[in-house]
């Protein structure tokens, strides 16, 4: 264990390296720039490869290129960069190429407010790319978690053969905290499923019989013929894959499988943190750095004898609907503080459609963090 003052953006990098990432391609963009800066040094130290590409599109494509050779790969971006790479995100998800994308959220549409923070890409992480594209998104709250969740992200991307987005914020990327870093040799690393049969019997990277299958994929250059195809209509039982505009039942199977392979592993993928939700009549549901305000608000509400509880969403996608329902079983009021105009609130409303609970939001889009007092004020305003 080494104790050090770790910068949030560097924590993502250290987590990635601890998880076995040896390729980084990126393009500088505030507030994620320090990730590229740090990786340009660290990747050489760990015998990996760093390359600064010509744009974010190229970065994610280079990451895909590196990943298909079996090298765990990461890129990072923010705001406009994330908007730009949506197509490639969809490509990587449907081609089932493991990759991790760190989104250090900045504020505002367009160029936005580069040095400031936001949580405005919740829906984008799931609905940004075309064509029902189920990337996994997880959201750290502290610098220490930025380290551990990046490891988790890399491992999930490998076992699920998908893209995992680390949905962070400028507020987290640009803070430093004291973290005890473990010895990296003790970190558990997982690998994508690889074929065990000889090359002559291997008939492609998408041979799945069940909707829950994560098919094995051979790394390029290992003697197998591997075609990674983003056409979105992977053949079910092999075939040459060259039939673009292929069979509709394959399309149906592929898209459903992309979702089902993740949803069927909920226990592994969905992470939440609950505080005093058992008897809670008021539940605060928050994610990322704003969960810290929600936690304080819960403590202060309890001090005023309000039966408050708090649910932190660590996994955002797939959305932890079951956890929301469980935690809000007795809730009369649900408050969702977030640094956008109510993206998670919408999901909570949807999850609680069958209940009586009133769902309200505390929303900042001025890049300032939400104060516990604001959450309490909202509680008092709406508590029946």
């Amino acid at each position: 264990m080494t104790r050090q003052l770790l910068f949030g953006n560097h924590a993502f990098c250290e987590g990635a390296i601890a998880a076995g990432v040896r390729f980084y391609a990126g393009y500088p963009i505030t507030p994620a720039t320090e990730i590229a800066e740090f990786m340009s040094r660290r990747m050489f130290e760990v015998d990996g490869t760093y390359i600064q590409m010509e744009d974010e599109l190229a970065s994610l494509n280079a990451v895909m290129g590196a990943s298909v050779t079996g090298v765990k790969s990461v890129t990072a971006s923010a705001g406009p960069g994330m908007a730009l790479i949506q197509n490639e995100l969809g490509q990587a998800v449907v081609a089932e190429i493991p990759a991790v994308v760190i989104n250090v959220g900045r504020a505002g549409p367009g160029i936005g407010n580069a040095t400031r923070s936001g949580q405005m890409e919740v829906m984008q992480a799931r609905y940004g790319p075309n064509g029902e594209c189920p990337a996994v998104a997880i959201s750290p709250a502290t610098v220490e978690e930025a380290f551990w969740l990046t490891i988790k992200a890399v491992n999930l991307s490998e076992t699920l053969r998908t893209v995992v987005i680390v949905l962070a914020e400028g507020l987290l990327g640009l803070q430093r905290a004291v973290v005890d870093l473990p010895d990296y040799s003790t970190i558990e690393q997982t690998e994508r499923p690889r074929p065990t049969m000889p090359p002559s019997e291997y008939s492609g990277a998408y041979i799945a019989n069940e909707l829950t299958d994560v098919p094995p994929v051979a790394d390029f250059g290992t003697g197998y013929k591997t075609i990674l195809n983003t056409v979105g209509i992977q053949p079910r039982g092999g075939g040459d894959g060259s039939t673009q505009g292929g069979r509709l039942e394959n399309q149906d199977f592929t898209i459903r499988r992309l979702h089902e392979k993740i949803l069927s592993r909920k226990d592994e993928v969905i992470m939440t943190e609950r505080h005093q939700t058992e008897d809670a009549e008021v539940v605060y549901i928050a994610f990322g750095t704003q969960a810290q305000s929600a936690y304080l608000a819960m403590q202060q509400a309890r001090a005023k004898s309000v039966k408050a509880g708090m649910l932190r969403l660590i996994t955002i996608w797939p959305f932890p609907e079951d956890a929301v329902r469980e935690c809000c079983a007795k809730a009369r009021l649900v408050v969702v503080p977030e640094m956008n105009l109510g993206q998670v609130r919408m999901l909570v409303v949807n999850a609680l459609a069958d209940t009586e609970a009133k769902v309200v939001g505390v929303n900042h889009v001025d890049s300032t963090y939400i104060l516990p007092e604001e959450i309490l004020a909202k509680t008092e305003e709406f508590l029946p």
Partner: protein
Amino acid sequence: MSADAKKNRPDPMTPLDDLIGQYADMPPGNFRYCPGCGLGMAQSALMRAFHRLDLDISQVASAGGSGCYAVMAHYFKSNHVHGSHGRACAVATGMKLANPELTVLTLQGDGDCLAIGGNHFIHAARRNIDITVICFNNFGFGDTGGQLAPTTPKGSVTETSPFGMPEEAFDPCKLAIGAGASFVARSTVAHPVHLTKTLAEAIAWKGFAFVEVLQHCHVLWGRRNGMPEAMDMLNFYREKSAFNTAAISEEECFGSPIYEPDGEQDINFVLGVLHKEQRPELGEELAKLRQRVKGDAS
């Protein structure tokens, strides 16, 4: 070359079906090209180039995007990423850097490589990463139905230039040289032996190699411009092409073609290796850097 090496060199006249067994992965029916398409011819030449170099096909990795050519890699036993439109150079850069042992190609169309993917193309050339970019130039977008591309000759008729292409065209080779490609060559499907040799030389080249393959689309471009049959276009390439020799000046090698079906025509292609320059290759430079950083650390 020693006598032994010469003897062991693959026979360039090996019949097609012998090559197919070694390199190709045939579809159940026909290739997914139009009858007479130049892509089938170019694909032949590419396979013969693999054979000429005696490549281990499982160590060949390619990247491509959208276009008529996109299915080509499926017909080989090599590895392939069928990625997003135009980004093949970036994918290939990632592959080569992550596994320098691979022979990395990009198979791209002219629209894919030079329109949507132009940025990635020039930057890959600038980096001199050891990949081979093979650009199948058919003067337009084929897969979407024959719209104009950056390589469409000025004046020629396409689906989106019904009154003649108003813009000037790129000379892909000149662009590649300007961007810093260390090997630039041009050939056509009407010159199959030359094409095979050129592709082989490009793949063997250490550094960024670019080959412009003039590959006809008689169905979409040819038909609208007075050359409705595959053979018309092959003859057109044969007439308009000259091999690069000392007699040809550098200016004559490049140009922005003009082709009005019934009017002004200024369209000539100089085939052959147009540029060759030894430059440090990115992968090797990074390896050196890695050594240096480790040396400093210890």
